[in-house]
């Protein structure tokens, strides 16, 4: 009984904060999606904006397109962060924390600045073009990469690599070195050790790295605005437009609800196939 009371006291403050600042806003968002107009009365509930969404296939296509882009971003970030994390954990010894800090260091500058930097690199008079011109590959500056979906992908991967590296680093660091020794004793080659020991034990880290990147990038609108051009628009831009320009909060809320449902469904399916908590982690 005493324990239970203590538990309640301990859990209550974060629970209240979560309820007020996380759950209540979500409920408000859900309610807004059923409103008829932004500033009108709440009742009667209306499905007007749900109909608009269903009648506009391009909205849904854009959502799928953005999901693909976020998926690709997450996969590439993990692919590129993996060797870095691996190197840091297994080859750098005591300096690993310093090196990890260096890896995360760019994330300390403003997110906007890092995105804008890519504009400088990829633009007509940008570094990449100047390099290509001086090498003689192209004759005049043209924004070949900027303002495209590739530009969005490149920029997002760059921005999110540190966030993918962290959970990978944490997962690898938890691997007991004795497991590697045991594998070698039993005659496993380095490749076999990697495939049968290191990689499976890193899976939970990969799963969290994937969600760390996939979920925030799916709602992205700043990067596509700055470097995406006409073909690089993402679903997040649609939502932003409803709130910032159209003053159509119900449609904006609805678009957000659809996004939320998609992410929730995706997490559920993903969790069923890669149960993060059940992957054995050595202690």
């Amino acid at each position, binding site marked *: 009984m005493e324990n239970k009371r203590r538990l309640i006291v301990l859990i209550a403050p974060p629970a209240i904060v979560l*309820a007020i600042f996380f*759950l*209540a806003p979500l*409920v*408000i968002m859900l*309610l*807004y999606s059923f*409103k008829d*107009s*932004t*500033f*009108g*009365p*709440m009742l009667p509930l209306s499905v007007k904006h749900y109909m*608009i969404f269903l009648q*506009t296939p*391009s*909205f849904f*296509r*854009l959502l799928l*397109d953005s999901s693909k882009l976020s998926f690709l971003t997450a996969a590439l970030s993990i692919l590129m962060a993996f060797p870095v994390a691996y190197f840091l954990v297994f080859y750098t010894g005591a300096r690993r924390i310093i090196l990890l800090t260096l890896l995360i260091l760019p994330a300390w500058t403003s997110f906007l600045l890092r995105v804008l930097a890519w504009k400088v690199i990829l*633009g*007509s*008079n940008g570094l990449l073009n100047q390099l290509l011109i001086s090498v003689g590959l192209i004759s005049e*500056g043209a*924004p070949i990469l*900027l*303002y495209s979906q590739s530009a969005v992908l490149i920029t997002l991967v760059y921005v999110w690599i540190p966030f993918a590296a962290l959970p990978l680093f944490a997962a690898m660091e938890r691997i007991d070195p004795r497991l590697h020794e045991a594998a070698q004793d039993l005659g496993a080659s380095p490749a076999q050790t990697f495939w049968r020991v290191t990689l499976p034990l890193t899976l939970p880290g990969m799963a969290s790295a994937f969600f760390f990147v996939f979920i925030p990038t799916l709602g992205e609108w700043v990067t596509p*605005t700055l470097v*995406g*051009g*006409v*073909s690089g*628009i993402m*679903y997040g*831009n*649609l939502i932003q*437009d*409803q*709130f*910032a*320009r*159209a*003053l*159509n909060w119900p*449609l904006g809320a609805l678009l957000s609800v659809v996004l939320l449902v998609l992410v929730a469904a995706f997490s559920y399916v993903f969790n069923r196939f890669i149960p993060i908590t059940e992957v054995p982690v050595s202690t």
Partner: protein
Amino acid sequence: MKKTRILFALMVGAALLLSACAGGPAGPAEQKNDSLTVLEWSGYESETYWGPFAEKYPDIQPDYAFFSEDAEALAKAQSGFYFDVVHPCGSWWGLYVEAGLVQPLDISRLSNFDKLFPELTQHGVINGQQYFIPWDWAFESITVRTDLVDEVPTSWADLWDPQYAGQISIFDSGESTFYTAALALGLDPYNTTPEQDEQIKQKLIELKPNLLTYWSDYTEIIQLLSTGDVAVGANTWNDAWSTLAEEGYEIEYIDPLEGRISYACGFGISANSENVDLAYDYINALIDTESNANMANDFYYGAANRDSVALLDPALVAKFGYDDLSILDQTNFQHPLTQEQREKMTRIWNEVKSEQ
């Protein structure tokens, strides 16, 4: 289990209540005496724009709440944010009046009112009463880097010419793009049938091969044109041409066959204002000859005050016709939009943008 359900029900109830408050009429405003709260575009707080107010009330420093989109200002006002004076643009004025957010003005309390161009002040009259006092006005047209194109476009319809493939950046706005497509098709943007709306949407989708990117603030389009990433800036304001011309670029601001688009922005006083006297004095200081000219010179816009024109850069006055507002008759002046019209225009633009 039961407890969580009750908790959840409570939360839903609280959320319902909150959203009802946000949606309902503005709650009781916070009382403020001897101060002035101005809901203003960022960048317009300079004292040189309201000098006479500072002279009269040396102890009062206006409190500014800044916004960067008209929608943001209206949302703030609608949700009960306290302000005395607000500075929206013409196509949004009607919504303030419709929602009862601003009060009819007594123009006899503004000694500078008679100096204003009647061609502009007439647009501040809604339902027979003066609600808004125009201050700044500008065009929306096409800015072209003449050194980067073979032929300079002469109409809005020319934006669709395949020779500009990937060379255009257009203003990222449902209202402006709807307007542009309607003008290119020879339609009246304010009276379109659903079939014509569909036609406008298709027309805008057809424009996409010519577009490199959208621009959303003036620094962005000026940068795009100066780096040469794009050669044509569509729905750009006077400032794009002025800034680039000043820096020596080969640049033209065209006068399309269908006419430029034009608009004015201006000031209204909140229906809940506790400082009406100060608000009138503040607005009167803004439309003072010198203040109005200072703003117009800083932003390359037109001034609503007729006498301010003499203080403007003569080259710009000649270029844009700031001295004779009969020029507005040759343009498509933006009128107030209803919320339905705005939602429709943005929805069409969103559908165009999401068409990959």
